């Protein structure tokens, strides 16, 4: 267990080592927030102020999740391309475990430098009128959403074993997330059919479901969201391990 903590600490240190990059990331996030603020103000003109605040706070929460969530597919792609995966495979622990715990540390660094500002903006948009129960719901579902997203990224990363660059596949993932995850566009505004489809797919449970729960924090919705999240985590956990095991078996490490 202690080795996981050490990996997490290393991820945290890596994040803090690139603190200037993260600070520029924060500025980008703030600019993006300003654009969204004025855009949605124009879209929702004439509607109640509460609706605008709900929408924009939802989008800030989604931006926070996008910031903190891991980009494991790129890490794995980099390791396969350079051949450094060989050294990870020669550790007495699985590659996915190493990626996960180091990623958690890096996510903590990102939260400390960027996420916390975004979270304060989120609270400010809601006049700091957020109950402790809502915050608890957000924390639990966001943590599970993180794990679910990690598994999705890991599956995506296994394509690195078959193609030189996963850039194209990753762009496709971004497009799917754009439509089905609700991290750019609130799910409430979806057409009914798309909303129904999205509610059965895993993408919404990595992003949108956390935001929807923050807007309507009931025990029933909380139970529904975490049940689906856990089911998808379980499914993707086994799927990603199966794919990774198969990919490693067929791979040829670069350079001999």
């Amino acid at each position, binding site marked *: 267990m202690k080795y996981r903590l050490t990996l997490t600490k290393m991820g945290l240190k890596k994040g803090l080592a690139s603190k200037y990059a993260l600070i520029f990331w924060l500025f980008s996030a703030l600019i993006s927030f300003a654009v969204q603020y004025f855009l949605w103000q124009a879209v929702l003109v004439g509607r109640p102020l509460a609706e605008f605040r709900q929408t924009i706070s939802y989008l800030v929460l989604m931006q926070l999740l996008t910031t903190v969530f891991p980009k494991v597919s790129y890490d794995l792609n980099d390791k396969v391309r350079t*051949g450094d995966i*060989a*050294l990870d495979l*020669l*550790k007495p622990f699985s590659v996915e475990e190493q990626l996960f715990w180091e990623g958690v540390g890096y996510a903590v660094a990102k939260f400390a430098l960027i996420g916390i500002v975004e979270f304060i903006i989120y609270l400010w948009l809601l006049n700091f009128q957020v109950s402790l129960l809502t915050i608890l719901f957000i924390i639990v579902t966001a943590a599970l959403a993180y794990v679910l997203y990690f598994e999705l990224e890991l599956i995506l990363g296994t394509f690195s074993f078959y193609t030189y660059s996963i850039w194209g596949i990753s762009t496709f993932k971004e497009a799917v997330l754009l439509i089905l995850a609700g991290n750019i566009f609130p799910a409430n505004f979806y057409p009914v059919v798309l909303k129904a489809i999205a509610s059965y797919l895993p993408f919404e449970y990595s992003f949108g479901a956390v935001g929807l729960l923050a807007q309507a924090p009931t025990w029933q919705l909380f139970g529904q969201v975490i049940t689906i999240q856990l089911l998808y985590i379980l499914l993707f956990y086994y799927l990603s391990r199966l794919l990774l095991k198969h990919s490693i078996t067929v791979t040829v490490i670069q350079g*001999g």
Partner: protein
Amino acid sequence: MIIKTENLTKHYQKVTSSGLLHKKTKTVQAVQNVSLQVEQGQRVGLVGLNGSGKSTLIKLILGILQPSSGNVATFGVEPITHRQQNARKIGVVFGQRSQLRWDLPAMDTFKLNREIYQVAQSDFQARLAKLTRMLAAEDFLTQPVRTLSLGQRMKAEFIAALLHDPELLILDEPTIGLDTLSKNSIVQFLKSLTSKTIIFTSHDLDEVEQVCSRIMIMNQGHLVLDQNSSELVKFAVPSTITFTSKQVSYDELKSSWPNVRQLVNGDFEIAKIKPEQVKDILSKLTATVPIENITVKNNRLEYLLAHISGGKAHEI
């Protein structure tokens, strides 16, 4: 026995050209029917030219590549399914890869390895102090890896690979790209590791001979030679002397040195000199010709590859 392979073969498809709709591939025979055994405590040098299959063989032994056919056992077990179990007994240094985190000090990786391999704190401190002293690495282990020279980084890689006191040390071209001083310091360090089973791959035969008592030579995927280094060193390999002299012409030299030839850059070369003649020729050359620069080379590996048959080196 630490390693045993029987008719181990690995081939894979390599893309030779690709367009929008077509892709041409060819089968590369990386390792072909290699059978070998390595006993505990042996120091084995695995030598070959680039692309000879040394690194692929190492990866098959480590269980990170799947053989196409044949058998391999590392520590008596099949290495792919037992990779994590074997990893506790193996230390690895790949010259072109790094287990150190680029933006963190090497010390952080050492601490991580202490946890991963569950090394007791007292053992960790003792080994770290010993390895740091042996490699003269005291000054740079707390600096971010990105600020280290290649020589310093390789020393840190060695410490990271040895902190868990592995039984088997696998070194895949660990001195590649290093300057002569750093190379010598690594070679001296390896010579001092007397209790370990070592597999040391390189394309520099002289360097491997300083460390290993047994030499294996690979060529085009085949294990073409497996011999004691004491036997191999007796094998007489001709040398080549290359020198620069701007004060004499080729025709003048040719009259007293009939074997000399001029290279495209204007230097001169005398090739195929028998070992017992090198000293005399050097003395005579330096006494009679005004020389600005001189080097003596013997491409032992290439020469041996041309004169190996039946797994032994033979002089023709």
